[in-house]
Every structure is written in structure tokens, then in C-alpha cells.
């Protein structure tokens, strides 16, 4: 065993040899260095962020920014792996579903004390809602998402459909089912609705949880945090999923494998989001309508949430990270990103100036849904990825004919087991997150400063080893027991 580890360490040292310089500047340069990870989205999105970094640097020439693109397809895996190895950047972008587990795991630093008041006041309520975990704000998006129904105006008019005027005027369940049948009569294959069944994973929770919520159910009970039994498999949620199943069973839903059911005119109605707009607009022109989702009971509910930024506990200079975020949240920068990726601008000032989302814009409905409280954030619990996966599985089963009550109750059991096994995610106070600081001895004062800020949520400053040795970095949770002594012997601070 000992021999084994010696050999492994020797290999490691050999491995580090030629690589050691990569990404590490001289210690002194660290003071104004900002390491950023962002998701490698589409071309325009990446170009925009790069341009934004250049513009920020034009104002703050002393700052050096290192940007790493992480492919979207493997983002969370890479973050978890890097977190385990103690190699997170200063500023981290992440998708909405993961905020709560990153926050609970102690990778993120609360932003409350850093966020300027005027920006806070300008942000859309949906952004503040999704960024909050327990009593702190951990994430800030510069854009949000919009979920709705895309419709073909000509086909609806031919079927004499009532066209809803706003989020408060949505079709109810019965009206919607009737409409599907009427539309089907004039359709060659009877398939008139695109639910984006070709998408995978998170889409199903994002797009269909609102239907459950509108019916009075939900994925999990929001108070106390996140029990699924009785909610996910309650009668309201079952009713909502039964409705979805009946649309599929009656052959109204196009499988959409080519992702073009709506754009090619095979269906007149499509569940979808803001990202569909450019393609749909090009295909349908003036016939394209954006409508609210159907409501299952009194009010319509829709989805929200997208990529956002968080400052990690490892950030060497949290103020600098926030300066950069504040820069990204300036109206013109928010607009630039919104134009690049089509997302809903995250601030009211930017929405007002946006051609697409402003009062007269074609996508104004999305902004209204977010501003007026129709959008509901995902369950704010570290269990969300498990909840989403369980619901995805249930959705697929229901799609293929499993009884909705049975499928949902299996999912609920799965989620509740996860909660139990994690002891309902107790608050973690301890040395975590302060571990594995980069090895430079110049930052003792900065660390003290940082601990003061972090101290609010009970991080025990005396447990924070600084000047971490390579071997102290990236300990898996064994090393992270509460109250265990710091494993690193490098108390350089």
C-alpha cells in the first residue's frame, strides 16, 4: 500500500513536471487575476463574452482575465471533478439546476454583501429568486429564459381558436384538449403538438413542472424543503401528467426527432422557449404567435432559470469578481448578451430597452411572465439534479404508457430516499470551502478578509489552511469531516 502510494506520487510528480507552468502566473500577478469558467455556448454567445471581457479590460487594464470554455455537454461533471480536486476558478458560470448543490457543498460564496444596491433593485424578481439558497444570494444571471407555446396563427384561425391575450388569459385544460382535436381534423397525420420529446434530461422538468404547478401540484413540497411524496404523486400532479399522456396517446404529439416539427409546418403548436424564436420566426414570419402555456387550474404557471454566475469560495479577490459581474449587468452589456443568445435580459432597465422583450416586442410575454410572477423557480434544494432525473425518468415512462400515478410515485420515493440519505441537507459549517487555497504566501491578509466576509454563514476561520500543499488539495469527503484537523501541513499564513 505504502509502496503503491509512493509510486503513484512519483508518477504524479513526473506528470507535473512539464505542465506545472500552465495557467499559473507569478504569485504577485494573482492580485489582479480573475479566473473564469464559462459554458461554451453558441458562437455568438462566446464572441460576446469575449468582447465583454475586452471591454472590461479596457476600463481596468491592471486586471488579467483567464477564461476557460467548458463544453455544455459535460459542464457539471467538470465542475464536480474540479471541485473535488480543489481547482475551481474565481468566477464560475453554472446552469440553474446546480446552484443549490454547489451552494450547499460550500463551493460558492454569498453575494449579498458584495452586490451593489442599485443593481439589486434593477434585477428581475426571477433572477433573485433562482439565485437564492436558504438565506443568501449565490447566483446572478445576466439573462433568464422564457417558456411558452409557439403557435401558427393561420392554423389557429382556420380552426376558430380563441387567441389568448396574455399570461392571465391562458387556455384552460379543456379548451386546450378540444383545440388539439379540432386542429387534428385538418392535419394529415393528426399530430398537431410538439412537446420537444427529442430533447433530453432537464427539459422535461423545466417544461412540464409548470403544468403540475398550475394544477396545484409540484415536483416537491416547497415547505419544508423538498419532500416529494404527497406532492409529486398527489392527485393534482397526477392529473397534469395524465393530461400530457392523453395528448400523446391520442396521437396528437409529434416525436420531433428532426427538431423541425413546428418550423416545417407539421404541427401548429409547439411547447418551447425563447431559444426557438430565431428559427421559428424565419420559418413562419408574421404567422408566428407566442402564447402562454395552457393552465390546468386557476392560473397559468411557467418556467424560468438559466445560466448564472457565482463567486467561488476560492476566489482570491471577490470584490474584483463582483466588479466584473456588475459590469456584465450594465444595461448595454445585458442587452448585448441577450441579443447574442436570445435570452430574456436580466434587468428591468435592459428589458425596457430591448427590441425583442420591450413593451412592443414580439417576446414581451416572456418578460411579463418573469416580472409578474407567473414563472416559478426550480425547487431550491441540492437534491434538484436527482429530482430532475427522477421526473425525467417518470416522464419517459408515462410517455410510453406507464400509469402516471405509478410512475410519479416511484419518482417521489426515489427523491425522498435521496433526502433521507442526505439528512435533509443540514447546514454545513466547518472548514470546507476554505481548503486548498492556492500556494502563495502573499495573501494572508486577503484570506483574513475573506474569512470575515464568509464568517457570516459560520465558516470557522481557524480551520482554514492557507498555502495548501498539492497533497492537501482536492481531498474527497473523507478528509472533510466536520471538525477534522486540516490535512495540509502548510500553515504558511
Amino acid at each position, binding site marked *: 500500500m505504502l509502496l503503491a502510494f509512493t509510486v*503513484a506520487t512519483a508518477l504524479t510528480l513526473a506528470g507535473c513536471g512539464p505542465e506545472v507552468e*500552465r495557467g499559473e502566473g507569478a504569485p504577485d500577478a494573482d492580485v489582479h487575476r480573475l479566473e473564469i469558467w464559462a459554458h461554451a455556448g453558441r458562437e455568438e454567445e462566446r464572441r460576446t463574452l469575449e468582447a465583454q471581457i475586452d471591454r472590461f479590460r479596457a476600463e481596468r487594464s491592471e486586471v488579467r482575465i483567464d477564461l*476557460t470554455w467548458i463544453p*455544455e*455537454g459535460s459542464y457539471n461533471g467538470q465542475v464536480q471533478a*474540479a471541485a473535488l*480536486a480543489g481547482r475551481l476558478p474565481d468566477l464560475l458560470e453554472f446552469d440553474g439546476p446546480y446552484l443549490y448543490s454547489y451552494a450547499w457543498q460550500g463551493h460558492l460564496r454569498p453575494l449579498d454583501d458584495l452586490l451593489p444596491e442599485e443593481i439589486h433593485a434593477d434585477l428581475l424578481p426571477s433572477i433573485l429568486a433562482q439565485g437564492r439558497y436558504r438565506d443568501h444570494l449565490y447566483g446572478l444571471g445576466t439573462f433568464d429564459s422564457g417558456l411558452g407555446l409557439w403557435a401558427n396563427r393561420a392554423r389557429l384561425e382556420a380552426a376558430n381558436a380563441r387567441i389568448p391575450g396574455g399570461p392571465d388569459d391562458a387556455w384552460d385544460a379543456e379548451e386546450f384538449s378540444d383545440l388539439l382535436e379540432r386542429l387534428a381534423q385538418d392535419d394529415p397525420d393528426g399530430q398537431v403538438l410538439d412537446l420537444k420529446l427529442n430533447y433530453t434530461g432537464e427539459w422535461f422538468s423545466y417544461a412540464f413542472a409548470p403544468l403540475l404547478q398550475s394544477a396545484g401540484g409540484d415536483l416537491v413540497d416547497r415547505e419544508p424543503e423538498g419532500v416529494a411524496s404527497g406532492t409529486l404523486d398527489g392527485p393534482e400532479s397526477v392529473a397534469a401528467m395524465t393530461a400530457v399522456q392523453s395528448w400523446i396517446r391520442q396521437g396528437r404529439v409529434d416525436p420531433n426527432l*428532426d*427538431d423541425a416539427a413546428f418550423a416545417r409546418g407539421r404541427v401548429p403548436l409547439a411547447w418551447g422557449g425563447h431559444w426557438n424564436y430565431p428559427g421559428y420566426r424565419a420559418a413562419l414570419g408574421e404567422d408566428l404567435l407566442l402564447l402562454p402555456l395552457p393552465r390546468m387550474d386557476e392560473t397559468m404557471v411557467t418556467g424560468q432559470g438559466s445560466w448564472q454566475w457565482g463567486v467561488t469560495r476560492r476566489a482570491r479577490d471577490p470584490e474584483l469578481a463582483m466588479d466584473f459581474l456588475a459590469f456584465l449587468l450594465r444595461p448595454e452589456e445585458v442587452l448585448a448578451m441577450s441579443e447574442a443568445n436570445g435570452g430574456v435580459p436580466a434587468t428591468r432597465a435592459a428589458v425596457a430597452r430591448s427590441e425583442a422583450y420591450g413593451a412592443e416586442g414580439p417576446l414581451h410575454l416572456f418578460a411579463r411572465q418573469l416580472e409578474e410572477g407567473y414563472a416559478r423557480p426550480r425547487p431550491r434544494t441540492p437534491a434538484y439534479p436527482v429530482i430532475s432525473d427522477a421526473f425525467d425518468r417518470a416522464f419517459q415512462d408515462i410517455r410510453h404508457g406507464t400509469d402516471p400515478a405509478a410512475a410519479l410515485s416511484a419518482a417521489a420515493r426515489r427523491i425522498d430516499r435521496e433526502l433521507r440519505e442526505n439528512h435533509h441537507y443540514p447546514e454545513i459549517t466547518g472548514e470546507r470551502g476554505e481548503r486548498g487555497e492556492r500556494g502563495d504566501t502573499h495573501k494572508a491578509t486577503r484570506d483574513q478578509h475573506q474569512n470575515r466576509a464568509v464568517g457570516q454563514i459560520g465558516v470557522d476561520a481557524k480551520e482554514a489552511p492557507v498555502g495548501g500543499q498539492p497533497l492537501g*488539495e482536492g481531498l474527497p469527503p473523507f478528509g472533510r469531516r466536520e471538525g477534522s484537523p486540516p490535512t495540509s501541513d502548510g500553515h504558511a499564513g
Partner: protein
Amino acid sequence: MNRWPRLRAALAYALLLAFTLLFVAPVLFMLVGSLKPDELVLAEAGTLRAFFPDTISLDNYRAVFERVPFGLYLASSLIINGLIVGLGLLVNAFAGYALARLRWWGREAMLALVLAVLVIPFEAIAIPLFYQLSWIGWRDDWLVQAIPFVANPLAIFLFYSFFLGLPRELEEAARVDGAGVLRTFFVIVVPNAKAAFASVAIVLFLFHWGMYLWPLLMTTSEAVRPLPLGIANFHTLPPLQWGDIMAFGVLMVLPVLILFVVFQRWFVRGVASTGIKG
């Protein structure tokens, strides 16, 4: 028996052509798809246009080079696979030789060990191994993507069976001349075992060229990511750009194809020898 030799030959050709169609169609489909606009890849899949496009363009390839630092990833992949194959040949041939030809205490136990670990799939240990290496802080370089795969029970087993089948006389002659074990190995055994080396090299290369899970866990830096991770760049928000994905696929398989065409004789002979000697 050979009353209708022509008929038999015609029948054989007909069968061969039918199989050829089955084997080549998907490859052709990919190649053609990579030359078409994204939305047509699926739309035309049910028609002959899937194989005979009316227009072709290299736009998808341009997109691939814009979205993925292809040269960088390719270089990493070549370095990683070079290390695995290079070191793997040496290390596993050593072990195979010791197991097949030398007399030593522990030989039987080692042979049993090699056969036992043969059935452990890498995916089953990937995450514990990931923890293990995170402990010592080793990640995000080329070596961590190669070293764990150097010692390979299948490769040891292949060498072992091959060396068993080599005639013993040459080695004995060398030994009578006073050559040590290592000298005998390098001077006599290696030159006579080219087919075994070729086949193990090929097996190691084919197994690891498409590796995805491990680099996903172990790398973050652009500079050390291998090619298969590039595909993750295309799994963005829908619509999926099938044309780009096909183009990336063609580019990813191209280096292997070139190797295959150049070393075809060795490929086939090497793979074949694994079976006969086994």
C-alpha cells in the same frame, strides 16, 4: 461439386455486395451528412439524397474548426495514445514474456491475477480511481490520461499466448551464448514477435482513441483535452447541428483511417494473429 462454378461465384459476389452495402451505407451516410446543411441531414435520410447529395459544401468542417480547437485536441489525443501504446507495448510484453517463458516463484499467482482483472471493466472503477488520484492531486495533464491504461490485462494475455507459441530454440541458442534474459528478449524475441506487437498496438489504440468518460473527469484545460471531448461542444441547446457533428466524426476517425490504410496489412495480420495464437 463444382458443377456450376460460375453460378457459385456469382452467388458469392451477390452476398458480398449485399454485405458491403450494409457495412458501407452508415459510413457513407456520415460522410455525406457531413457535407450537407444541418437541417437536411435528417430530412433527406429517407431518400437517396442521403447517399447522393445534390449539393455539397465544406461549411460544417469550417464550423468544426471554429468551434473546437481541433489541432490542439488532436495533438493531445495523439500524445495520449502514443504514450499508452508505446509504454503499453513495453510493459505488457515484459509481463507476458515473464509469464510465458521464465520460471519463477509467483508465476502462477500472477497469471491468475491477470486473468481475474481481465473482467473488471474500466467504467466500474473509474470513479474510485478518480477519487484516488484526486487525493494525490493528480489531474488535468496528458499523463493522467495515459498512465492508468498502460498496464492492460488483455495486452498481457495476448503477449503471453503469443510468446507461448514461439519456437524455443532461438532463445536457447542465445542463452547458451551467454545472453541475459533482457538481452534475449530484445534481440531474439522482439524481432520474432512483430505480429504480436502490431496486434497489441492496434487493440490498445482502438480501445483508447474514443475514450470519453475518463478525460471528462480528469481534464479542464483546453491544452490537454483529447478529441472525443470535442463532441461535447456540439451538445448545446437544440437544434442539434447534425451536419457539424457528422463533420467532427469524420475528422475524428480520419487519423485512425489513415493509420488503417497505411498499415492495413499489419492491422489485419495483427488482429488475425491474436486469434490464432490465442
